[in-house]
């Protein structure tokens, strides 16, 4: 066993332990944080950095290029897909008001809050335009009621 292999093993083990530690912190953050956005903040820690560290460790430990390329594919795939899914989940979470607004420091999507809190029940469809909640709700209920009346 040459010196280079020993150094490679030590680096790989350190990276593995760091990645596992990130997974543990993700679990702790998921349990302790108060709402969807903060839980997602904690839960996506291992999604990019942890997986990247563990993939580098695996690429060091595994022999042969085929495994290395596949691990690189997984890492690139995580980098591409993590922002997309986080964006979709957080958008739906904001629109459905699974967000503790009193804990937000900056809320750039907030229109005028009084009208919005009165009209939006938190169950509006995700494609409802945020600007005119009252009009949207009225139109939606009108659309939903008319066919039923004609049918009944």
């Amino acid at each position, binding site marked *: 066993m040459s010196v280079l292999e020993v150094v490679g093993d030590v680096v790989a083990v350190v990276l593995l332990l760091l990645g596992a530690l990130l997974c543990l912190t993700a679990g702790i953050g998921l349990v302790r944080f108060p709402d969807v956005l903060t839980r997602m903040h904690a839960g996506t820690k291992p999604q990019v950095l942890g997986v990247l560290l563990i993939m580098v460790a695996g690429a060091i430990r*595994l022999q042969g290029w085929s495994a290395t390329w596949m691990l690189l594919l997984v890492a690139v795939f995580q980098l591409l897909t993590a922002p997309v899914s986080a964006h979709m989940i957080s958008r739906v979470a904001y629109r459905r008001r699974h967000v503790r607004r009193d804990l937000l420091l900056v809320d750039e999507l907030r229109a005028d809050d009084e009208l919005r809190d009165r009209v939006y029940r938190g169950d509006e469809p995700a494609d409802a335009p945020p600007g005119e909640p009252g009009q949207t709700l009225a139109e939606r209920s009108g659309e939903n009621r008319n066919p039923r009346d004609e049918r009944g």
Partner: protein
Amino acid sequence: MTVVYWLAYGMLGGGAMLALVRLGRGPSLLDRVVATDTLLVIIAAGLAVHAALERDPTVVPVLVVVSLLAFVGSVSVARYIGGMLLSSADDGQDVGLPEAAEEARAAEVDR
């Protein structure tokens, strides 16, 4: 090497258990989506740790499948929740506020 085994699998298992706790308790569907996403990532990390510690490259293709599955699952459930109440009675007004909104309202009342 045994110490590394125990440490790595212990931390991964602890993270997976805590994600399962959030999956069971989570007040809203979106919390469960986030917990499932994290759980799948932790499972992928565990497979990769196994591959690295055993020098066993047979589980590496499984990693690709698991990461694909996590992405497709979370995106499809998020879209499902986004359009969920389009067909509900009375435009979903009978369902009431989500729990986070109730908590925010309670906090405002306390203040």
